[in-house]
């Protein structure tokens, strides 16, 4: 039944992670940065599931972790969106380059 090898999953997840990271690092729009983070979380999820599948299905940790990460991602999105909303009200922008009040 195992037609797709583990490496394939890992490559997909690595690519997803890299794309997400790149988004976090270079996108100016705070919402896009948030999306990048979501991508990275999902890349991790793919890894969890893939390893669970190939390491033996007797243990449930992989799936459990995935569910936890999804919950976490939802919570994180809620908080992050609230922050972004407030940032927009305060600065009239969501451009992370311009939000540098904490400069030393």
């Amino acid at each position: 039944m195992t037609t797709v090898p583990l490496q394939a999953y890992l490559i997909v997840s690595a690519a997803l992670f890299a794309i997400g990271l790149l988004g976090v690092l270079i996108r100016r729009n705070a919402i896009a940065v948030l999306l990048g983070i979501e991508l990275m979380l999902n890349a991790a999820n793919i890894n969890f599931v893939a390893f669970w599948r190939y390491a033996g299905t007797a243990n449930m940790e992989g799936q459990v972790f995935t569910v936890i990460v999804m919950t976490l991602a939802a919570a994180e999105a809620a908080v992050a969106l609230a922050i972004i909303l407030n940032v927009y009200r305060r600065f009239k922008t969501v451009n992370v380059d311009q939000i540098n009040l904490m400069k030393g």
Partner: protein
Amino acid sequence: MPAGSELFLIPGLPLLAFLLIAAFGLRPQSERAAPAPIIAALCGSLLLSLRALGHVAAAGPQQVTLDWLHVGPIQIDVGVLLDNLSGLMLVVVSLVSLLVQIYSIGYMKGEIGYGRYFAYMSLFSGSMLALVISDNIVQTYVFWELVGICSYLLIGFWYRRPSAAAAAKKAFVVTRFGDLGFLTAVLVLSFLGYGIFDFTALAHAAQAGALSKGLITAVSILLFCGAIGKSAQFPLLIWLPDAMEGPTPVSALIHAATMVAAGVYLVARTYFLFALAPAALLLVAIIGSITLFLAATMGVAEDDIKRVMAYSTISQLGYMMLALGVGGYTAGVFHLTTHAFFKALLFLAAGSVIHSVNTNNMWQMGGLGKRMPITSLTCLVGALALSGIFPLSGFWSKDAVLAAIWSSRLPGHQVMFVFALIGVSLTAFYMFRLWFVTFTGRPRTEAAEHAHEAPLVMTVPLLLLAFIAVIAGALRLHVPFTHGGIAEVIYYRREPETTSALVIAGSFLCAVAGIGVAWAAYRAEHISSAAFNARFPGVFQLLKNAWYLNRAWELFATRVVIAGSALAAWFDRHVVDGMVNAVAWLCGAGSRELRRLQTGQVQLYAFVIVLGIVAALIAILAGVAPGIILRGGR
């Protein structure tokens, strides 16, 4: 066999009385009862002390030690040591203290702060008894400071008088100067002397050779520094005459009989160290002979009767130190004992006079003998005892001191003997100058004309002290102690001093000569002291100004100390502060540079984090850093 608790009670009772008076005796409505607790407590202490002395005489020394503190390897105990020396001192202190308190009831009557006075006096009595009975050096130091603070409080008892406040401050600062030596001695013992504080253990360690010669000498000299301050020895003797600003019973108890003798007591208590340090003994002897001579000459030109007695006290303390220095241990302690009685007597007599004529200046008195017969006679007894006239107590103790100097093997003891002999003459001279001017001749002022004898509560202690001053010489007869002579410490013994007819005759003649000159100058007026002063103005000025010692200290304080302080201030400002400022500047500059990293750009931070993770990963994969997480697991 007195129980340990009984020994603790000896200083404990007066301290309890102090708490009682401090709690209830300071309010105006209850102030009149303030003397009751302390007199009751001292009666108890005296009885217990006598019992303790009897016990020592019969069964030898006793020590009771309780645990107090453990600091690292150092153990500090609290305890009592009862031996011949402390037993004797306990009786002396509690007896003089009791009589002075009774006398104070009359003397301090109607004073503002009557309750406060007795509170301080009880604190002092308790602390002094505790100092005497301490079995280790740390405890001694604690009570040493406590009697010092009591002295400060009581000198400044009339604190509204600026001169009293200044005198109290002076006494405190000058004695602190000496106490520094004592404190250093304690520190040296704790760091270099294996933390041996217990007198017994210290004596054994010193005699077994566990402590080095240099250490013993250093500790002895440092302890002696403390004694110099407390016992007003040269060059720190300047505080004692000023301390006469306090009430006269205070001077009698603290600045004549007990506290100032604490310095001598300390040297006596640690004599087992001094005995092994010839250099320290020599220093003690030299300081003692300088002090006794200088102070005696100062007393000759003084007009204030209390200050004359203060100089006399300093001079007699010099005798005690000299006796200890030349090896006359028993003689020194013996003189301490008899001196405590007759000097307290003299001060109380002076107090009685001052109480009656309201002046300290002897030239405003005169002819008081007829008006105050008891005071006059008891004062005469004290003066005779102080001058060392047979058969009063002073004769025996002074003779013992002189004999000890005479038979000493110390280098230069002949010179010291001559100094001591001159001192005997001077002592007799200034004492009888005082007595003749005060009690004989015609009254020189209205107040002296109308002087009246003191009340019974003051004269009875005078009579008792006079009686003791006459018979205390009997202690010389060596009460049958099973363990050594009257004042021997348990851990130190020496051969009994021998006396010679030559010494006795010499001292007696010197004393009589002094009295004779005083009689000729101030009673019969064959010799005019004014003419002498006019003939030798330099000598007169020198003595009148107490050898300019105060001036010298003032100069020292204003020149040397200020210059030294300026140097220290410069060092502090430029070197110490400089170092602190340099550290601060370095931190500031570093932070200013590092601050630039904080751009406020979240993405930059994220980038740095990622770089860090990548670097860590590479390091772990390359095997440079341990990768616990990666290599672990199943």
